[in-house]
């Protein structure tokens, strides 16, 4: 063991009660740091999972200018192009693009979607609806309809449709009921209600009609292509980076959730900043505590410092002794605090099973190593001034005291 470390350690063990109290104080600061990390991380996970779990993380559409560019001139075509633009651009070669997108690292699910609007007609009343066409095999891939099903099944084969619960209530629809669906283009078909779902606060949940891609295609008059490709990715926090890759590989219009749901991103940012501030305060308190303890310690040891200097200890050696003492305080307090922090967040249920009334704490996001590292660094920094003051002690005066 280096000699300075031995002396620093000896100074700690020389006053065990005092050192234990100091280390415990540091540990409490680290505990607060870890608790905040786990809480902010857990909140982040909960919000992103709740808000983004049922929606597209990255949405790929045709670039609008390119649609125009691809269309030859002429009044008739111009009219068509206008109509297309109001309905949203058509991604004509979705089948070619989908495997390219699915191959981008991080992308977990891709799903082709045709969307538009229309009316459900029941008795005398009509209700405006959003029409969402997805592949029958992927009906629950992006939006987990199966999990939110109230009645019936998620089978959208044939003329089956799934309707939102509010729509079902308004039009008194039940599973098995036949109901005409008219699209905005005027096409109309009688569909059969196969399932009723409730997406809660999810986007357009209440007035949505879900059906197969083929039915959506014919109702909305979209002879080829789809409206967009929706994806979900493994880590929603890197959506922007994944979106950049998809954009580079496809040249299409790629919108990550951070743009389409900028309000969520803002809320997460504000929350993260709160976390940084609280953790910074925890660290500052640790630093102030260590600094004042080190000032007392070096002041009390002035006679010894004088003796060490007389025996030929350089000023650098004296500085190193007290820096090592501070480092040990930070390290021991950090490790103890990390252990206590882990024990504190251990009883909380996993964020995935979050139940209202508790805190959404994620034990995996406690930043334990970071807490120990920053605390150790902070304690060393806190010791610099006291250590320099100690090294500047006049040995004659100190020994004469």
């Amino acid at each position: 063991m280096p000699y300075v470390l031995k002396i620093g350690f000896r100074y700690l063990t020389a006053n065990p009660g005092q050192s234990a109290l100091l280390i415990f104080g540091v540990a409490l600061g680290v505990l607060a740091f870890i608790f905040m990390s786990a809480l902010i991380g857990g909140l982040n996970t909960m919000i992103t999972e709740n808000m983004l779990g049922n929606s597209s993380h990255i949405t790929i559409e045709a670039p609008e200018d390119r649609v125009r560019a691809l269309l030859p001139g002429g009044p008739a075509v111009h009219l068509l192009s206008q109509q297309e633009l109001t309905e949203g651009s058509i991604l004509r070669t979705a089948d070619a693009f989908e495997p390219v997108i699915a191959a981008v690292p991080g992308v977990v699910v891709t799903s082709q979607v045709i969307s538009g609007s229309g009316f459900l007609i029941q008795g005398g009343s009509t209700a405006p609806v959003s029409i969402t066409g997805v592949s029958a095999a992927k009906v629950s891939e992006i939006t987990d309809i199966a999990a939110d099903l109230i009645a019936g099944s998620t089978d959208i084969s044939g003329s089956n449709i799934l309707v939102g619960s509010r729509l079902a209530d308004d039009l008194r629809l039940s599973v098995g009921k036949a109901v005409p669906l008219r699209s905005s283009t005027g096409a109309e078909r009688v569909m059969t209600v196969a399932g009723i779902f409730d997406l809660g606060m999810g986007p357009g949940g209440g007035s949505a009609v879900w059906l197969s891609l083929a039915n959506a295609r014919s109702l909305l008059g979209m002879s080829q292509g789809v409206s967009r490709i929706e994806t979900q990715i493994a880590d929603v926090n890197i959506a922007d980076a994944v979106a950049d890759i998809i954009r580079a590989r496809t040249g299409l219009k790629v919108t990550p959730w951070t743009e389409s749901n900028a309000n969520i991103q803002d809320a997460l940012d504000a929350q993260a900043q709160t976390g940084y501030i609280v953790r910074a305060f925890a660290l500052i308190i640790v630093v102030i505590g260590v600094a004042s303890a080190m000032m007392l310690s070096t002041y009390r040891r002035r006679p010894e410092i004088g003796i060490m200097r007389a025996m030929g200890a350089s000023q650098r050696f004296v500085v190193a002794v007290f820096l090592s003492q501070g480092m040990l305080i930070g390290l021991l307090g950090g490790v103890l605090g990390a252990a206590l922090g882990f024990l504190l967040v251990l009883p909380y249920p996993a964020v995935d099973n979050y139940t209202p009334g508790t805190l959404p704490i994620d034990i995996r996001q406690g930043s334990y190593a970071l807490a120990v590292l920053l605390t150790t660094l902070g304690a060393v920094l806190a010791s610099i001034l006291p250590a320099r003051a100690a090294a500047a002690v006049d040995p004659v005066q100190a020994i004469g005291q």
Partner: protein
Amino acid sequence: MTALVEVRGLVKTFGEGETVTRVLKGLTVTLRVGEMAALLGASGSGKSTLLSILGTLMRPTAGEHLMLDVDMTVADDAALTAFRNRHIGFVFQFHNLLPDFTALENVIFPTAVQTGRETDGMRQRGRDLLARVGLADRIDFRVPNLSGGQKQRVAVARALMNQPELVLADEPTGNLDSAAAAQVMELIAEINRDAGTTFLISTHDSRIAERCQRQISIRDGVATG
């Protein structure tokens, strides 16, 4: 005999203006290799001040200070620290040992601080020195568990650790009863005789002064003897 330490025209004043204290006023003295000298003088005459300057712990206001032909007045703090580590040992009256360390750890400090490590070789030399001062059975005692006389003998052993040419002792027996004081002086005399280490010992005790070959007195800021 060759000169080990030479000071000429040494001046030391404390403070400025109205409160100025002139302690040394052109003091000249030479210590020769192998000498054992007593430093006498009334309280406040400047004995501790002279020892601090000779020990490179304090800089004189003016005058020459040579040791081993090295000019001490021009060296910087790091050079003085290294010099004193190798060539000068100290025994003080109070605050002599590091209280949180054992006798052995105190003795080997001057060597360990030089290399940044404690080695078995150092520990062996430390044990030998403690045996030499009659403390073979107190090697691993912590300082608070040693008597006053034992502490001073540990301090003597530590002063010898790096085999210095000069040991400066400021009232080393001032805190001890006469039996313990005699023991420490006996030890110093033996070391002086056997190893040829030069000692300068400040004291108020005439019996201790008589044990030394030479008596240097400070009066009115100058030395005689």
